[in-house]
């Protein structure tokens, strides 16, 4: 056929002066050129037959019309067993044949070529030969396709390399799944499995982890202190991951223990400050923000004594539809100073009032809207609460969860939200 078409080397003598394949024009061009011509004399046929790759021409229906010696040798067939008798798909494994019929043949016919496709050929003795094939449609003078030319490269090394990559990838995926499982378990151990029932109070919480690969540093807690007193806590440990998890654990149990011995939230935070400062005094300094409160039933509602350190003031949504920040004097970041003082404020939660405690993940979420900060912001959160009020704890959490979903793409940090509400009086 026309395999001479791919013979730029057949123009050997003189071609060295051209810009292209002139790499062979070494020193002493005169004698070498003669040597080259004699070496390349019968090159066209030999180049085809004994090329370092397999070469195959098929009719449009896949029937083998021509095949080079290299490929015949690889496959262990004689020429007369294949040419005019077998189809390209006959040389493939069953899986490859299905792939060929459903993907490759249509692609070749639609776009005139496919390149670098991985396939397994099946040799006469049944052995598999991993190859990479490239097929190009050859057209006649009027542009009508007449046959398909295919080069076949031995891809055993590459396949082994791919298998190794695949194994490494599967291993990495397995490790990641294991890590996420571990993170999820650890995270759960740092949060209450379910909020306790506090008579006369609706409580709801939401925790959104920014990354499944790392334990978040946010925490919340609601726990009984005595017959009619409950401790409530929410905060954010600096950092993430295993270290943050151990610090969170320490914080959680310190708060629970301290609150049993001391009735005042400011004193509880003072104890936490001392514990953190002492425990992490040297190189691995750790600190947190926190808000801590003690709930006591009070007629229809509750009295809530609150103190905070380094943490944003909570929002309260009143039964009358107003909303605003609770004015709790801000104390210092917890665990930084040797001697830190906090202040307790007491507020009342009446029928229909709902208190929202939250960490900064929400306010810090990127909105994607070009603005002064590009962050959702305290002010937006305040406005959101104003629009929402009045709302039950459950309604507030579901509205905040929806808001978080809207902002999900922009959430860089974990977010914890705890809502405490007294049911409306009319019920």
């Amino acid at each position, binding site marked *: 056929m026309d395999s001479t078409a791919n013979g730029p080397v057949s123009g050997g003598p003189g071609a060295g002066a051209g810009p292209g394949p002139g790499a062979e024009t070494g020193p002493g061009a005169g004698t070498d050129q003669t040597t080259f011509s004699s070496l390349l004399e019968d090159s066209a046929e030999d180049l085809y037959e004994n090329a370092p790759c397999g070469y195959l021409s098929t009719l449009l*229906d896949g029937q083998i019309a021509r095949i080079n010696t290299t490929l015949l040798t690889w496959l262990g067939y004689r020429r007369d067993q294949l040419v005019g008798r077998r189809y390209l798909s006959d040389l493939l494994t069953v899986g490859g044949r*299905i792939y060929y019929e459903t993907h490759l043949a249509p692609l070749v016919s*639609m776009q005139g070529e496919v390149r670098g*496709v*991985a396939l397994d050929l099946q040799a006469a003795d049944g052995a598999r030969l991993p190859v990479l094939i490239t097929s190009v449609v050859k057209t006649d003078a009027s542009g009508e396709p007449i046959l398909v030319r295919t080069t076949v490269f031995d891809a055993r090394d590459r396949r082994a390399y791919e298998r190794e990559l*695949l194994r490494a990838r599967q291993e990495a995926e397995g490790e990641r799944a294991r890590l996420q499982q571990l993170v999820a378990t650890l995270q759960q151990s740092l949060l209450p499995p379910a909020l306790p029932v506090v008579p006369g109070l609706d409580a709801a919480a939401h925790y959104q982890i920014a990354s499944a690969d790392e334990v978040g540093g946010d925490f919340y807690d609601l726990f009984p202190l005595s017959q009619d007193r409950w401790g409530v806590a929410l905060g954010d440990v600096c950092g993430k991951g295993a270290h943050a998890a151990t610090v969170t654990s320490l914080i959680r149990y310190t708060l629970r223990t301290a609150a049993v011995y001391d009735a005042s939230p400011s004193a509880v935070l003072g104890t936490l400050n001392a514990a953190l400062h002492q425990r992490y005094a040297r190189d691995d300094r750790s600190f947190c923000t926190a808000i801590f409160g003690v709930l006591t039933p009070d007629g229809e509602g509750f009295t809530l004594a609150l103190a905070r350190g380094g943490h944003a003031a909570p929002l309260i949504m009143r039964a009358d539809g107003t909303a605003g920040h609770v004015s709790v004097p801000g104390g210092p970041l917890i665990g930084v100073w040797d001697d830190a003082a906090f202040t307790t404020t007491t507020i009342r939660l009446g029928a229909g009032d709902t208190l929202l405690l939250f960490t900064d993940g929400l306010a810090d979420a990127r909105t994607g809207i070009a603005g002064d900060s590009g962050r959702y912001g305290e002010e937006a959160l305040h406005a959101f609460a104003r629009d929402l009020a009045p709302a039950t704890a459950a309604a507030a959490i579901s509205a905040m969860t929806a808001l978080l979903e809207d902002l999900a793409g922009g959430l860089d940090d974990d977010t914890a939200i705890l809502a405490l509400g007294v049911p409306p009086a009319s019920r």
Partner: protein
Amino acid sequence: MGDIRVGGRNNVVLAGRDDKPVMMLANGFGCDQNMWRLIVPGLAGDYRVVLFDHVGSGGSELPAWRADRYATLDGYTDDIVALCHELGLRQVVLVAHSVSAMMAVLAAIREPELFSKLILIGPSPRYIDDAGYRGGFSQADIDDLLGSLDSNYLGWSAAMAPVIMGNPERPALSDELANSFCRTDPEIARAFARTTFLSDNRSDLHQVTVPTLILQCSQDVIAPPEVGVYVQAQIPGSTLVTLPATGHCPHLSAPEVTLAAIRSFAAADGGGQHG
């Protein structure tokens, strides 16, 4: 020309004329609606041609793909029926290739009033041989295929990568090529292969009441001629036409005869007669 891209979950494209009978073309396992490109021009003058991509392939909305929904042909069948309702199609001539042929069978059993005729190209109700039935593949063959897909997803993505990356020598084509054809997420391709090659719809065939044409290639390793004969024997009143074509995609390898067979059967009055 006047193609209307409706888009949506199934990337619906309308070709042809809206005052003509509806012909819906459903492609099979492998590529996407581009598979019909050689015969659509021959249909556009006489039909409202409805093209679409199965969810998970071509220009469909990939996020709509869910492993559980598309683990059986029912999920795909639901989509075809839903498309007919959403587009308000009636009296549809449904031309379905490869695995879509069984979706067409299921759709026509479920809502026969939607369809006037079925034209099944290379249908196979079961690919794996069974007692008294030859599907063309042994269980071991299909296990080998599914196993190679499971273990070789790098290979599949690498195999398709040159297509995904386009065609540097023919930049005019590359945008179109880059965005379509056989681009397949390897995970979806594996699931679709599983759904396709493990399906068994032999017991559904006799319930088809819509006039049906089976177009069989004379040589097809995916759906061998005896499978076409089996389908014809099972679907009451159906017609079998064997096309002088090799391979599994006669609409690409022998578009003229395929088009002629489709047109002839679609245009014949009633159904069940030899077209």
